[in-house]
C-alpha cells in the first residue's frame, strides 16, 4: 500500500461524496428522519384500547366493574346496548374486545353461584389480544379485591406473583426498540452508501481506467472504505445523541465499548455493501440485491422486535449470518443494562469475524481482471 496513492483516491472519493448530495443525505438526513418517525411511532405497549361494554342489567356490582374499566388507562370503554351490536363493532374493527355482563350477573353473584364475565378479544393481532387479556385480568382482580373488601373480608389468594423487571422497570418498549433501530438504520446506511460505489466504476468504465494505473486493488478498496466509514460514524453519533437526549433512553454502559462496537459494526456493514457492489458489477443488480438482503433480514432476524431466543433452533443458527444481530444485542445491553463484558466480547468477536470474512471475499472477487 502506498500512502500517497491512497490519499489521492480517498480525496477523489470524498469529493464525489460531497458533490452528490444524496450520500450526505443518506448519512445524516436518513438517521434523523427514521429515528424521529420510529422513535415516536414504534411501541408495543397498548394504551386506550377501544373496548365494548355490554351490561344487560344494571346493578351496583356491575357498575363497580364498569368504573374499573373507565378508570383504567389501558382502555377506552364504549358502552353498547346489546351483544349483537358489540359483535358488529368487533367485526368492523371498531373495538378490539368486548366485556359482556349478562342479565343474571348480579343475581348469580349474590347467590354465591359462579357468575361468568364474558370477555371476547379480537385475536387477529394476537400479541395485542394477549396484552388485553392481561389488562382485563388486572381490572377484574382489582374489582374482586374491592368487592370482598366492601364485605369486610380479605380476598384470599394462596400464591401471589410479585415481579421486578430489571433494566427497564417502567416496561417502556421504546427503550428496547430505539437501540435496535439504531442498528437497523446503520445496516441500511452502510449498505446504501457502498453497494453502488464499485459497481458504478465498472459500469462507467472508470474501473478499467484505474486498472492501467499503478494503483493496487487493495488501495481501491481501502479508498472506498475510509470516507464512507467516517460518514457512517457521523450518522451513528447523531443517532446515539438522539436516542439519549430526545428519546430519553438511558445509556448505562460506558463510552468506549460503544465506540469500539459501533466502529466494528460500521466496518462490517460497509464491507457488506462493498461485497454486494463488487459481486454485482452493475448498479441495477447491486441496488436490487441491497433492497432484498439488507433491510428485511436486519428487521426480522436481528432480535430488534422478534426475540431470537424464541425462534426454532435452525433459524437461530441462521441469525448468526445477520450482522445486525450482534449489534442489536450489544446496543440493547449497553443502553439498558450497562457494560456486560462476556456479551460484549462474544458479539464483538463475531462482528470482527464477519467483517474479515467479507473483506476476504471482496479481495478475492476484485482482482484486476477484465471479463
Amino acid at each position, binding site marked *: 500500500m502506498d500512502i500517497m496513492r491512497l490519499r489521492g483516491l480517498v480525496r477523489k472519493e470524498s469529493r464525489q461524496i460531497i458533490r452528490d448530495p444524496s450520500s450526505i443525505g443518506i448519512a445524516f438526513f436518513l438517521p434523523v428522519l*427514521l429515528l424521529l418517525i420510529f422513535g415516536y411511532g414504534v411501541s408495543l405497549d397498548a394504551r386506550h384500547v377501544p373496548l365494548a361494554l355490554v351490561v344487560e342489567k344494571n346493578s351496583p356490582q356491575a357498575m363497580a366493574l364498569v368504573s374499573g374499566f373507565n378508570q383504567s388507562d389501558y382502555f377506552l370503554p364504549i358502552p353498547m346496548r346489546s351483544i349483537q351490536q358489540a359483535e358488529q363493532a368487533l367485526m368492523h374493527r371498531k373495538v378490539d374486545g368486548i366485556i359482556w355482563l349478562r342479565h343474571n350477573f348480579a343475581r348469580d353473584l349474590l347467590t354465591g353461584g359462579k357468575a361468568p364475565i364474558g370477555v371476547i378479544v379480537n385475536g387477529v393481532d394476537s400479541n395485542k389480544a394477549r396484552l388485553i387479556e392481561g389488562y382485563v385480568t388486572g381490572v377484574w382482580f382489582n374489582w374482586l379485591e374491592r368487592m370482598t373488601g366492601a364485605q369486610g373480608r380479605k380476598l384470599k389468594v394462596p400464591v401471589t406473583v410479585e415481579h421486578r423487571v430489571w433494566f427497564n422497570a417502567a416496561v417502556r418498549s421504546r427503550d428496547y426498540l430505539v437501540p435496535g433501530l439504531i442498528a437497523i438504520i446503520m445496516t441500511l446506511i452502510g449498505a446504501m452508501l457502498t453497494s453502488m460505489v464499485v459497481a458504478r466504476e465498472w459500469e462507467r468504465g472508470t474501473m478499467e481506467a484505474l486498472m492501467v494505473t499503478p494503483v493496487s486493488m487493495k488501495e481501491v478498496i481501502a479508498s472506498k472504505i475510509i470516507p464512507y466509514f467516517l460518514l457512517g460514524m457521523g450518522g451513528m453519533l447523531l443517532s446515539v445523541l438522539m436516542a439519549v437526549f430526545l428519546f430519553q433512553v438511558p445509556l448505562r454502559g460506558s463510552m468506549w465499548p460503544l465506540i469500539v462496537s459501533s466502529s466494528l459494526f460500521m466496518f462490517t456493514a460497509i464491507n457488506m455493501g462493498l461485497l454486494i457492489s463488487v459481486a454485482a458489477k452493475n448498479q441495477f443488480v447491486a*441496488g436490487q440485491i441491497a433492497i432484498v438482503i439488507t433491510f428485511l*433480514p436486519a428487521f426480522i432476524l436481528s432480535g430488534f422486535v422478534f426475540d431470537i431466543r424464541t425462534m426454532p433452533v435452525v*433459524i437461530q443458527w*441462521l441469525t448468526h449470518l445477520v450482522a445486525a444481530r450482534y449489534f442489536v444485542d450489544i446496543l440493547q445491553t449497553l443502553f439498558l443494562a450497562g457494560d456486560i463484558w462476556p*456479551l460484549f466480547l462474544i458479539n464483538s468477536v463475531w462482528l470482527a469475524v464477519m467483517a474479515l470474512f467479507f473483506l476476504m471475499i471482496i479481495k478475492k472477487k476484485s482482482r484486476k481482471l477484465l471479463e
Partner: protein
Amino acid sequence: MLRKIFALMKKEFRAILKNKKTRMVLIIPPIAQILVFGYSASFDLNKVPFAIYNEDPGLASRQLLARFQGAETFHLVATIDHDDGIAPLINEKKVMLVLHIGPDFTRNLSKGQPAKLQVILDGRNSNSAMISLNYVRTVVMGFNSHWAALHGGHHVPAQLVVSSWFNSSLDSHWFIIPGIVALLALVVTLEVTALSVAKEREAGTFDQLLVTPMTPLEILIGKSLPGFIIGFVEATFIITMTILWFHVPFRGSFLVLYLGIFAFLLSAIGIGLMISSISVTQQQGLMGAFLFLVPAVILSGFATPIENMPRFVQYITYLNPMRYFLIIVRSSFLQGASFDLLWNLYWPMVLIGIATLTAAGMLFRNRMY
C-alpha cells in the same frame, strides 16, 4: 397503441430477466424469506429459559416449581442458592427470568397467609418480559385453584371467561405470516420499478424513449406491467405457501384478497416509478426506495400496532398503502371478511396509485437534467 405498449413491456421483461443475477434476486430471496421469516417472526415464547432460587425447605414450593419444570413453555437452565447468583444469569442472557421463593413460603401458605413468588425478569426486551410474566401467572393460577380445591378457602365469586375470535389459540404466526405477503410483495415491486427509469436515465436511453412516438401514458403502462405481473406471481406464490405450508386458515374470499392485491400493487408500482423518475442516478433511486420502504414497513402495523403511535404519526400512516393492504390480507385470512367490511380500504390505495402514477408520467417529460 397496444402493440407499442406490448413491445415496451417485452423489452422491460428482457431487461429484468436477461441478467442471471437479477433473475436469482427475484426468485430465490422471496422463497427463502417466506420460509425463514415464517418460522422466525413470532411474539410467542417457547422454552423460556429460567432459573430457580428456592430458599424454602417446604413441600409446597417444590410442588409449585414442579409445575414450571413440567411446562412446555419453560426450560430450567440453572438452580441457584444465593442472591449473587441472579445477576450473572440475567446479565449474560442465560435466563429470561428467575423464580425466587422466600424461606417462609410453605409456612405462610399453610397458615392461609399470602405466600409470595418473586419473579425477576430481563427487561431488555420488555415485550418478551411481559409475555413470560403472563405465562408465569397462568401457571400460578393453575396452582392456586388446585390448592384451593384441596384446602378450601379462596372462593372467587366471578370468573373471567375469555374467548378470542379468529385465532382462538392466539398463535402469533397467524398474525405475522399473512403480513409477510404484503411485505414481500412490496419489496419485489419496488425492486422491479424503483431503479427502472433511473437506470435508463443514467444510460441515456430514456431520452431516446421520449423522442419515439410513444406517449408518456404508454411508457407508463409499459413500465408498470412487468412489476404488476411479477408482483402478482410472487404474491400468489407466497399466499400458496402461507396456506399449504404454514397452514394459516384462509376463511375469506380470493376475490376480496386479489382485489386488494391489485390495488396494493397499483400503489406500490406508482410509488416505485415516481421515485425512479425523480432520481437522476441509480444511487438516488436506491436511496429513494429505502426512504420509502423502511418507514412503510415499520409504520404499517406489520409488527407494532398503528393505534399505539402518536396522532401525527398515525396521520402519516394514511399515506402508506401497506397499512390498508395488511388489514385486507389479515381479515381475508383470519376473519373471513367480506367486501362490505373492507370496502373503505381499497380506494385509498387506488387513489395513491393514481396520484403517484400521474406524477411519474409528468416527471418523465419535465425532469431532464
